[in-house]
């Protein structure tokens, strides 16, 4: 009996200590601080996620160019290695800043915070954040945005939403891009719509072509409306 006791003392059994901590707590705290700051300044923040090659940059370039006449706009762009995207976006004449992520596959709230610290854009009506082209990793990270757009191009195949339900569930609105190519690639629009609704019932979907400009007016109207709704809520 006494032997057993000393054995227990020599090899104490592990105890279970409850902790309950969100792994992404640090990111969420920074995101919350960013969101509060953006709201205090009446800046409406839109982030864009998609796979590489969906046409995020062309879409964003047009968005900036068209909104610039009436609103103060700027964009932060995450890119793995090059500054090609930032250079293209700069053609819109809106302030653009690049976040080079190296081999990191997604943006985190702290990267947005750091990028904003030494960037004097003045007061902004809209800030766009283009995430790294990736449909997996960005889904876990809140960037303090008001609206997250997930882009899907007609050339990618209608089953993308079924393959990446997580990102569609982390986004607010789906944008189907490159609609000008829909016919050439035999894009099955009803199938794509059904797949989006299957993984995210009720999700709003907008169709655009950055090349022809089709659907852009409707999309911009939607953004402006979302912004005024947000402002009226935060002023209450």
């Amino acid at each position, binding site marked *: 009996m006494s032997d057993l006791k000393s054995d227990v003392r020599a090899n104490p059994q592990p105890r279970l200590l409850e902790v309950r901590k969100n792994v992404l707590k640090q990111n969420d705290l920074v995101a919350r601080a960013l969101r509060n700051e953006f709201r205090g300044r009446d800046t409406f923040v839109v982030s864009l996620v998609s796979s590489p090659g969906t046409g995020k940059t062309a879409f964003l370039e047009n968005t900036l160019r068209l909104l610039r006449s009436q609103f103060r706009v700027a964009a932060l762009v995450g890119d793995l290695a090059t500054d090609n995207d930032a250079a293209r976006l700069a053609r819109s004449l809106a302030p653009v800043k690049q976040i080079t992520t190296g081999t*990191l596959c997604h943006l985190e709230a702290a990267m947005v915070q750091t990028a904003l610290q030494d960037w004097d854009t003045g007061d902004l009506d809209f800030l766009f954040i283009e995430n790294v082209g990736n449909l*997996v990793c960005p889904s*876990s990270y809140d960037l303090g945005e008001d609206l997250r757009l997930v882009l899907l191009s007609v050339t990618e195949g209608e089953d993308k939403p079924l393959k990446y339900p997580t990102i569609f569930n982390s986004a607010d609105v789906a944008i189907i891009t490159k609609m000008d190519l829909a016919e050439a690639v035999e894009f099955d629009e009803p199938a794509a719509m059904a797949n989006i609704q299957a993984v995210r019932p009720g999700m709003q979907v907008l169709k655009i072509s950055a090349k022809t400009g089709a659907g852009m007016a409707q999309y911009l109207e939607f953004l402006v409306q979302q912004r005024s709704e947000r402002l009226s809520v935060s002023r209450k």
Partner: protein
Amino acid sequence: MHELSIAMSIVEMAQEEAQLRNVRVSAVHLKLGMLSGVVKDALLSSYGMACGGTVLEGSQLIIEEVPVEVFCAVCNVNRKLQSMQWFICPECGATTPTVVHGKEMEVTALEIQ
């Protein structure tokens, strides 16, 4: 592949607790939602790497996967989804946009010695 940075956050968190309480952590329990965007196997292999050279070296990561649970407004109860590709109530077939569980990524307990 962002599992390594997630694993490093877990190790950091456990390390803080271990230092605070002056204990040795032999295992970390994690709740991982199927909609968290993190792959269990990749996280497990990243964990070993993230522990290397820290006080957590040799510890185990024990993952409890949390299925996606949605609220069915027709049945007025929470239901477990049968397929991640089909957000409908498995009982009545109504569409279920409200996710109740499945996005978790939470350290729930530490085994300490």
